[in-house]
């Protein structure tokens, strides 16, 4: 392995950096307030109820957790797949993976009915629960990626060890996203879930959302410190994002075609694809068109710096819509408990369950995003994880 010439430096505390930090802290304070309010009054003050038991906070959390494992892609591409152009970004990719996961998990934990019993979740395991496995997978991910990051920063260490750590982290992230997808894939009761494709679907979603988040956060930090980021490198990452976004569309097509083929899933498919109101709109309008077809067209038909940035923003928006449709749409569709019967009287039987998120849930969710970004910024401020120069000439010289 050639000597590494990339120079990594801590983020400089420019006024822009301080302003960004203050903005994120404001979001964190708002989230803390929202959490105290919900904790005091109970979930009665949220839009959640006994039919929609996972609301907007879970959408934010799952998006961040999925994006976290995907943010590690850049490091994996460098260490595991040997693409040297990605190597200077590998450290920050590892850091961002950790902070996105922490942000997502913070939301999940604070949305628990008994957040104070986190210690119970950490010490009492039911190993037939994928949730329990996920607790181990998430904690393990943070540890494995932290070790990987430290090894990348040890300049005297033989690179083969970094490669090994990168491989372990890559395999771990595949397991982690499999676990996240299986939270839904293994729910036999609900027609919107209960599908093996959920795990691989979540993995491709993570590739796409994670790379988009990485591009946006890295560019923002580079801009705040006036560090150059080459157009060619960015367009190259944009093309990769386009491939990932296309893969998400492909898995989505397979998911729905498979469901459409089975008569028993006809109802839920008609709901999501045709008659589901907000969910149908989010699916076709935001997930497929805004978050899929448009970014793919942008990066392949008009590859440029600005089109790549726009594509990354659209992938994030589309990804959020996709998670919303999966999490909320899947619960909104009613459970069929009495097939062949019309329910004249009951407990919200056979009707689409309404859900309107409350401001508190939105504040908590945004707080998780703010936490992830703030922690990434603090990490870049105190650790040498961001390269000083990613201009095309500099990257090419080392390539």
């Amino acid at each position, binding site marked *: 392995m050639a000597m590494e010439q990339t120079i990594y430096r801590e983020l400089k505390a420019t006024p822009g950096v301080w302003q960004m930090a203050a903005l994120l802290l404001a979001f964190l304070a708002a989230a803390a307030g929202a959490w105290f309010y919900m904790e005091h*009054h*109970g*979930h*009665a003050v949220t839009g*959640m*109820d*006994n*039919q*929609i*038991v*996972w609301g907007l906070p879970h959408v934010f959390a799952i998006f961040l957790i999925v994006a976290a494992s995907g943010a590690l892609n850049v490091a994996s591409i460098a260490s595991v797949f040997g693409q040297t152009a990605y190597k200077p970004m590998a450290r920050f990719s590892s850091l961002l993976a950790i902070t996105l996961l922490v942000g997502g998990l913070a939301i999940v934990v604070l949305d*628990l*009915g*008994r*957040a104070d*019993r*986190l210690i*119970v*979740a950490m010490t*009492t*395991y*039911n190993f*037939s*629960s*994928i*949730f*329990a496995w*996920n*607790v181990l997978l998430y904690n393990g991910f943070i540890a494995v990626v932290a070790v990987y990051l430290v090894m990348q920063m040890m300049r005297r260490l033989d690179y083969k060890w970094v490669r090994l750590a990168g491989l372990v982290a890559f395999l771990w992230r595949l397991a982690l996203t499999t676990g996240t997808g299986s*939270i839904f894939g*293994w*729910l*036999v*009761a*609900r027609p919107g879930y209960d599908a093996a494709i959920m795990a691989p679907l979540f993995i491709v979603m993570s590739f796409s959302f994670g790379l988009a988040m990485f591009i946006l956060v890295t560019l923002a930090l580079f801009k705040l410190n006036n560090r150059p980021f080459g157009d060619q490198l960015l367009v190259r990452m944009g093309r990769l994002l386009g491939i990932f976004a296309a893969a998400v569309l492909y898995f989505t097509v397979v998911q729905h075609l498979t469901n459409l083929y089975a008569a028993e899933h006809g109802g839920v498919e008609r709901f999501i694809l045709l008659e589901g109101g907000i969910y149908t709109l989010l699916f076709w309008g935001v997930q497929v068109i805004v978050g899929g077809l448009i970014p793919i067209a942008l990066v392949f038909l008009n590859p440029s710096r600005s089109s790549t940035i726009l594509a990354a923003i659209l992938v994030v928006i589309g990804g959020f819509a996709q998670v919303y449709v999966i999490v909320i749409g899947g*619960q909104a569709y009613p*459970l069929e*408990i*009495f097939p*062949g*019967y*019309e*329910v*004249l*009287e*009951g*407990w*919200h*039987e056979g009707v689409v*369950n309404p859900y309107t998120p409350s401001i508190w849930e939105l504040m908590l969710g945004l707080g998780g995003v703010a936490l992830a970004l703030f922690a990434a910024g603090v990490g870049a401020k105190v650790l040498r994880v961001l390269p000083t120069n990613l201009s095309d000439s500099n990257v090419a010289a080392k390539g």
Partner: protein
Amino acid sequence: MTNRAELTRRDIMKSGAAAATVTLASGVTLMAFGGTAAEASGRADSGKRWGLLIDASKCSPDCNDCVTACKTENGWGQDIESDHISSEQAPEWIRKVTLRDKSTGRTTSAPVMCQHCEEPPCVDVCPTGASMKRADGIVLVDKHICIGCRYCMMACPYKARSFVHEPITDQPEQNPRGKGTVESCNLCAPRIDSGRIPACVEACEKAGHSAILFGDLKDPDSPISKALKQYPNAALREDLELNPGVRYTNL
């Protein structure tokens, strides 16, 4: 044991329940009993499997006595609680449903509660093991280790569980409930443990319907086993093969 207030020291020893006494200061004593989920489950008889057979033809659409009895017994659904929250957020341990057969137009009515599955999805998915099945087949939530993640509610095919959405007071001793935890029908386990029948079954008998038959599914000579052998009956969502302990006939 019926009421904790009536317990004597001797009863506690006899019951075999884990009991711990801590003297905090002179005259102030902290007592904890009940012990762990495993100990609680240990008091259940693994030689039995409790179940219900609900005869929809005997159930009156206008009668709500089983639901009322459950509310009284287990302390949920008081007006003061329901005033603050939306009906979707209100607790629901047992509900009455009225159904019309789409092909024949025949209407029937029956109560739906936790179906006490032999293979309960809620127990499989619970990360901490709070959602548990006792040795005698009763499925219930250990509210001491429920973290309120609500994954069991996602997993239950029967919508049998609800989440305590707000602070609650004045709870019955035999059934403490807690904000932020999940709850559902426990087949009146405290009553069963003291040799009584579930409150809904008792209320249905009192109302003169006797639409709910309670008994031991493992005992071939129990009335419920004999009835199941004699009449056609069905489980809700039979396709999932969860083998519920609650069965329906004439639905």
